[in-house]
């Protein structure tokens, strides 16, 4: 059981690195989608007794992150007609290394934090930290608006991982609300991306600096 968990977590971390390491935006979208699916599985696997609530949540998140959001993003991608992230402000390899470093630091940090129980937490806490870090790296190094959305998704996933630790703390309503907000957020963002593309004839966020002191 724990082997399954650990392999799933390892998968998550691997996906982070893939997302950081590739320049093809399509690949990143797929990676993030895959991560969503894995998260769903993890949600079920993490909990010994399988309640309908957990299942419902898992299914919801798999549907949302593994299917709906990728669909939206691919649509956006088609509209803006771009394939790859050219000239990120930080090169692919450096950002990859940075991601690896972040993972190491995450493990170190979580090892120093007092953990409630020893089954899940030692795995999930570093994983969530690492994913959040990856999300930040993606947002701050990629120039294309859509890549930044993807970074935000990674960030959300990281937080979701941590959320797995306290399913019983989170009322169902809130979980659903979180997912709903996430969905609407991505939806609105994709709309804005569309408008950006129309107004600025580009996806490059460097163009978006009319407003400054």
């Amino acid at each position, binding site marked *: 059981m724990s082997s399954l968990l650990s392999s799933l977590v390892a998968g998550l971390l691997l996906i982070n690195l893939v997302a950081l390491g590739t320049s093809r935006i399509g690949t990143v979208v797929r990676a993030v989608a895959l991560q969503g699916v894995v998260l769903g599985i993890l949600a079920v696997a993490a909990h010994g007794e399988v309640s309908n609530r957990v299942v419902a949540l898992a299914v919801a998140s798999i549907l949302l992150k593994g299917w709906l959001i990728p669909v939206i993003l691919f649509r956006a991608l088609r509209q803006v007609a771009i394939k790859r992230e050219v000239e990120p402000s930080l090169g692919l390899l450096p950002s990859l290394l940075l991601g690896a470093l972040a993972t190491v630091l995450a493990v170190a940090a979580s090892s120093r*934090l*007092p*953990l*409630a129980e020893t089954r899940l937490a030692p795995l999930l806490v570093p994983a969530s930290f690492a994913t*959040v870090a990856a999300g930040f790296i993606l*947002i701050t190094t990629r120039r294309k*608006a859509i890549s*930044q959305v993807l970074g*935000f998704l990674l*960030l*959300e996933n*990281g*937080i979701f991982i*941590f*959320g797995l*630790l*306290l399913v*019983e*703390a*989170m*009322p169902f*309503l*809130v979980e659903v*609300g*979180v997912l709903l*907000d996430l969905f*609407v*957020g991505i939806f*609105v*963002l994709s709309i*804005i991306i569309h*408008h*950006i593309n129309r*107004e*600025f004839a580009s996806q490059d*966020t460097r163009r*978006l*600096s*009319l*407003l400054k*002191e």
Partner: protein
Amino acid sequence: MAPLPVLLPLAMAVVVFFTPSKRWRPRLLAATAVAHFALTVSALASPALAGSGEWLRLDAPGRLLLAVISLLFLCCAIYSVGYLRYRVERANRRFCACLLVVLGTTSLVAFSQHLGLLWVGMEATTLATAPLIYFNRTPRSIEATWKYLVISSVGIALALFGSFFMAYAALHGGGAASLLFPDLLSGAANLSRPWLRAGFTLLLVGYGTKMGLVPMHTWKPDAYGEAPGVVGAILAGAVTSCAFLALARLSQITAAAGEGDYANRLLVMIGLASMGVAGALLLGQRDLKRMLAYSSVEQMGILALATGLGGGATFATLLHLVNNALGKGALFLAVGNVHRAFGGKTTGEVRGALRRLPVSGTLFLLSFFAVTGSPPFGLFVSEMLILKSIFAAERWLVGGLFLVFLFVVFAGMGATSLAALQGRPPASARASNYRDGFATAAPAILLLGLVLLFGLHLPDVVRALIGDAAAALEVGR
């Protein structure tokens, strides 16, 4: 089941969204605002209506927040009736609907007793305000919306992370991992300290982003600068207040858990930083609306600072919250009118506003003095009380910096405002059809009048409202 003040606006939002008539949407908006205000008043009057759910209940601070939100919205709704009359060229379907959604979600924040639920409300507010900022459909407004969305989404995500930390802290403490404020407060003693600290830090950053505390304030000038004045009023008056209340509750919990010093140190640092940076960015500011944004950053800094004083200044803080919401509202509406009348918002384009718009110009001038804390306006009273408790805590350096920053802010805002208000309108300023009307002037007058009233004499109702809220936030400190 969720209480009426939350449900009504959301339902009406749907109605408005599917209302075909362009002329009727604003009226429906206003009507809803009036109804909401009535509901709020009755909820304040009778605790029975205040909701009794475990997650959705109107405690004293919530009551105060709801009152502020409702009042501000009432004025903004009436204002937008007049405002949209001048913007017939724009589709107002999304605008009206989203305004109502924001009303609903902010009310949800006021009601929610659960950290997660509160987060949902805040996030929903964020998303609902995006289309409002995007109202003008210009490249600049798109950019503003984009930055607003990304930055506040990141921030709000961090807030969620922080909330999880809080829950984990409770879990680790051995208690049931509940995120209900009462439970957190009662069980504060055995929260796990490191998780609590980390959680508070993340929540400070997260909700600080919504408040616009330095260095998470970067979205503010862009959003306020490009959004219509009425949206700015709501962002600066209502949304920031929601975020602040969340922070206030959390610092209360942290203090109850015995980490008060830590939290206060962070709050004071960030508060002073916000005041200072805002002041620096206000010096030589040429854009009226960005000026308002930075002034709002400064006010949030004052609130954070006052919260960081560790309970001594809670009454003053909440009074300042109210005054700031109302005063900022008045200022935003007045500046919005000036913007309309000159078709520009930089001191290059706007000059002699006093002459072209006697009413709005005067309102602008007076609310500038009000917001910078000049007597006899309400913000003066609250700032004086805050300074009092700073000195009472013998934080001489903090007090000194507080005063210096207040002066810098005054200098910055004054130079810009007077440049826009005095002198002759420039020949280049194109004539506009805008004239001061009842719908566009009265709300600002009402808000400013209230700020003045609170400065001269604080009515017992308001005093009781604020006093109860303060007492509730003092528990366990």
